[in-house]
């Protein structure tokens, strides 16, 4: 009844092509944005920021990036952790080398540095595909982590090899460092997420995105109709690495504040982000958010329920958490191989018909 195109007349091509063609969706989107920007910063506290919302937002950016590469362009990558490390370490080097520059600029520059590194490690994709490419990107993962452990220049010769984010500001407000307030950190990450998601959405529905999808669906056919595989694949690696690099920089500078490359950006991080997009839905912007929410929020939620409400032993709860999460992942994927976003699509179909099923 409420949820339908009928009656919502489009009078221009731009309106016809908008992301949310249904009025209800459009309003929902604006309401969520308004809520996230206006209401949440008023009520957020340190726990909500550091344990729930910051990791969710930052993982969402990383998942968006990986989704561009894997979901839209079909190039499997296991190097996400390594590329996040590139973002984090470039951000650290920039922050310490140019202390007076706005942190937002450092984060964006880190993204560009990561994009360059990503293109470099994307070169093998011109020759190999599928599992073979996955192995090549795996090499990137291990090489980059080894590099940041091995070369002391990257961590400014500190005794322990840890990098710590010094205090940096945006418009005079602390965003990194120990005194940064929860709303400041949250709003910074949220702004990045909204802008990046907007970029991702518009890239993927434009000509660039169509080329990526053509390569994904059948590269020889794409080449025949005039898609340059070199440009398409490398641009996918560059854009994807840019997103992942920004996520890595935010992860280090805003969220954790101190990072040790082997532990934080190890191979498990690559798998985690890959799981997010598989569970959320490959080739879907919304799916990246849903996957990140599922992987980040569910463990925290389970922990609070099992330990906080039921008062169970912490180790038992930790083990159960892993089992429940694993079970749910399998259940979701068996019931819906296209991820959580496919459920959302089904719900939308049903909503359009509601309350008359025929």
């Amino acid at each position, binding site marked *: 009844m409420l949820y339908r195109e009928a009656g919502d007349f489009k009078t221009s091509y731009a309106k016809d092509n908008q992301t949310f063609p249904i009025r209800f969706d459009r309003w929902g989107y604006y309401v969520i944005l308004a809520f996230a920007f206006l209401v949440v910063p008023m009520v957020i*506290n*340190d*726990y909500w920021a*550091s*344990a*729930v919302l910051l*990791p969710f937002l930052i993982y969402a950016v990383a998942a968006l990036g990986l989704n561009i590469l894997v979901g839209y362009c079909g190039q499997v990558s296991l190097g996400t952790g390594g590329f996040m490390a590139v973002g984090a370490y470039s951000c650290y080097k920039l922050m*310490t080398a140019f202390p007076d520059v706005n942190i937002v600029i450092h984060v964006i520059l880190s993204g560009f540095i990561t994009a360059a590194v990503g293109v470099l490690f994307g070169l093998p994709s011109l020759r190999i595909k599928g599992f073979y490419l996955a192995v090549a990107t795996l090499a990137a993962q291990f090489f980059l982590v080894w590099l940041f*452990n091995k070369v002391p220049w990257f961590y400014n010769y500190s*005794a*322990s*090899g*840890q990098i*710590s984010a*010094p*205090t940096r500001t945006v418009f005079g407000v602390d965003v990194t*460092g*120990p*005194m940064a307030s929860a709303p400041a950190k949250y709003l910074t990450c949220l702004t990045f997420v909204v802008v990046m998601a907007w970029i991702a959405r518009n890239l993927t529905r434009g000509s660039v995105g169509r080329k990526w999808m053509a390569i994904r669906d059948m590269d020889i056919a794409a080449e025949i109709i005039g898609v340059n595989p070199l440009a398409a694949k490398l641009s996918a690696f560059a854009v994807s690495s840019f997103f992942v690099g920004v996520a890595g920089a935010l992860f280090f500078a805003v969220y*954790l*504040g*101190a*990072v*040790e490359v*082997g*532990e*934080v950006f*190890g191979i498990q991080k690559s798998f985690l982000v890959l799981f997010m997009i598989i569970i959320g839905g490959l080739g879907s912007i919304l799916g990246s958010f*849903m996957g990140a*929410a599922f992987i980040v*929020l*569910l463990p*925290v*939620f389970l*922990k*609070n*329920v099992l*330990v*906080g*409400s039921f008062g169970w*032993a*912490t*180790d038992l*709860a*930790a*083990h159960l958490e892993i089992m429940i999460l694993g079970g749910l992942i399998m259940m979701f994927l068996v019931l819906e191989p296209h991820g959580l976003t496919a459920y959302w699509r089904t719900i939308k179909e049903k909503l359009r018909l509601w309350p008359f099923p025929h």
Partner: protein
Amino acid sequence: MKFKLLAAAAAAVMAAAPAMADLTIPALNYRTGPYAPSGIPYADGFSDYMTLLNERDGGIGGEMINVVECETGYNTEKGVECYEQTKGQGALLYIPQSTGITYQLIPKASADQIPIWSVAYGRTSAVNGKVFEWVFNMPVTYWDGASVAVKYAMEQEGGSLEGKKIALVYHNSAYGKEPIRTLEALAEKHGFELLQLAVDHPGQEQKSQWLQIRRERPDYVFMWGWGVMNQVAIQEAANIRYPMDKFIGVWWSGSEADVVPVGDGADGYKSLTFHGVGTDFPALQEIKSTVIDAGKNAGDGSKWGEVGYNRGVYAAAVVAEAIRTAQEMTGKSDITATDMRDAMENLDITDARFEEIGLGGFAPAVETSCAVHSSPRLAAVQQWSAGDKAWTVLTDYMEPDFEVVDPLIEEDSMAYAAEAGIEPRACE
């Protein structure tokens, strides 16, 4: 779905907040993951000692102690979550139990004004209380440990390490890299050659490192290992028939979990320690009778008397003494985190006091001050006997080479102060 989840989580968090009146000590334990074999005994020992105080004395100064366990799995992100979750519950002190999490929390807790005690791990330069107002690294630091190990090796070699070769097998992380700087300085001073062999997380794969040791034949092997890495290293050392009495681990590489799986091959393996071994202490006997036999223990009770368990008891005993000191200093029983910090800076646990609390001879006396956030900075060497399945302490508690370590501490802490924009306090 997202908002429903958030709402439910919010409800759960609200429900989880307990009464604020108790003396709340969050315990960032790790009973799961690849480091669990090292984490479980410590967690049990810490909680059991606090349970003993609650059961026997009704807490400290009439206030019950509330140990809030939070599972980190030795993972930094979970550690942050645990910190944020528990800091609002009136936490008096954080014991992060991981060098990575310590580095995370040093700036955060300093901003929130809650003291951190890294129990012989974490950032060594936190010894400088002028810079690290809220951070303590007691009773001994990695740099002290490295120096004591070198000193012990030197004694074994008749006073000189000139021309000798020492290999350091270390966990490739902030933790494992800590001693390198000191060992390099000592190598220069004493003329030995240092061979650095990094082992990546989690440490099951060490074949190439030990092949290199077999080829290079170092006179001593030091190890900064943790969790499953320790037993693998000791097994590999046994496989290449490296003489076990020349193989010295740091205090985190010397517990039952590390040597028992290797069996007879581990006989003679040595490690550093900063507290006594065994169960021959009245307090441990009381834990057995009052807590474990009564079924109030935190774990399954099987870890009682192990090295890791005793370390948990040691940490808990010092925390209890600090709470008591804080209560005496302020004259009230319900102390705050700031009182706790002041007490940690004014600790004076004499040998007689250790005797009183049933831990006579368990550990050397502790005395801290505003400027010195570590005490007594002594370590002994213990050796494993596979036949008796027991550790024995071989030496007295030895002093590190302060001439080498202290300037390094000064240098590193000042570098941190400059980086973080801290003005060192005067400490009059």
